[in-house]
């Protein structure tokens, strides 16, 4: 009888766990339907009503691009208003002003050696769009390396206009890789 009670409890626990997993899967599937690309980025400039150099979450929704900063007003760009999308790369020193002051305080120019290692590569996503009056805007976002192309591809898939990427900017093809072997 005791054995049956324990088995029943195990079954109930397993059932509950399965239910929780199912709920999580359904919720994540719903979220994926709303927006598939969403990461924390830095808005460098150009988005109407949003301060420059603000960190926030950039999400692709069905209507377009949505930037939600940690605090302050959010900004949206509709798919129809996008004129072009560019992805570039940049290399920046990390740490900002505190790091710079710290490096300057190191004797015998030791800060220069630190500068050699304290840099990070980013992607820059530039979205050219027009406002309600037809005025041109250019929003620039700094995002993690390699994520810029994903944003571009998804926006293009949703109907955003973007000029084709020049051949020189495309990643190396398999043929080139074979030649170098």
């Amino acid at each position, binding site marked *: 009888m005791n054995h049956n009670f324990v088995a029943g409890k195990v079954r109930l626990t397993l059932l509950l766990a399965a239910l929780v997993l199912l709920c999580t899967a359904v919720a994540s599937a719903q979220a994926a339907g709303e927006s598939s690309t969403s990461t924390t980025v830095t808005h*460098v*400039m*150009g988005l109407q009503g949003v301060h420059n150099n603000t960190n926030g979450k950039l999400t692709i929704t069905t209507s377009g691009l949505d930037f939600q900063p940690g605090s302050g007003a959010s900004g949206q760009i509709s798919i129809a208003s996008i004129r*072009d999308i*560019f992805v*570039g790369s*940049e*290399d*920046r*020193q990390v740490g900002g002003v505190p790091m*710079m002051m710290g*490096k300057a305080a190191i004797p015998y120019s030791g*800060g*220069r050696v630190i*500068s*050699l290692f304290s*840099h990070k590569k980013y992607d*820059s996503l*530039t979205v*050219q769009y*027009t*406002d309600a*009056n*037809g*005025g*041109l*805007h*250019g929003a*620039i976002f700094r995002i993690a390396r390699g994520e810029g192309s994903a944003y571009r591809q998804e926006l293009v898939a949703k109907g955003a206009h973007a000029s084709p990427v020049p051949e020189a900017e495309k990643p190396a093809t398999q043929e080139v890789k074979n030649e170098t072997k």
Partner: protein
Amino acid sequence: MKPSNCKMVALIAAVLCVMALLPSTAAAARGEKAAPPWNVQVDEVQLGDVALPPDFRMAIYEEIVEELVKGKQFGSVYRSGDKTADGVPNLLILKTTMRKYSAGNETQRAVTTVSGATKLNVRSQLFTRDGKLVLEYFIDGNVRFMGSNLHATHVLAHNVAVTLKRSTLPEPGASGGGR
């Protein structure tokens, strides 16, 4: 009332009248400053034969718009393609054409101090609506020591706004202008 007292009262009245008139003339002068005669529309940056990254191109445009709004030299600042600028009187069009661009490297600047500068050079031209050239300048924007590469666009836009502010624009009715 004694004649000397009458004179004194008249003198004080005259002084008071002058003092009352002074602020109104000052306000008129202020009013003239508050409503600049020209409006400006900022055109998209033309690349010419310079290979400029798209983010730099848009950053120059955005920074110029921002700096001109901040400078308050013009009544209104319109963006390229803005339909509301169509019927605006006394509109100048600011065209920016790239002349030189040297890609910099922030890490190289931080390590060597003397190399890795980001350099921009543009030709800024102000045209009237009927295509008459009003002003033309060649302006630099560089980052030599500290700051990100994109900061060069801010320096450039600031220099454009300062140069335009220092230059004398013709009266809206007059045709043409200095160069």
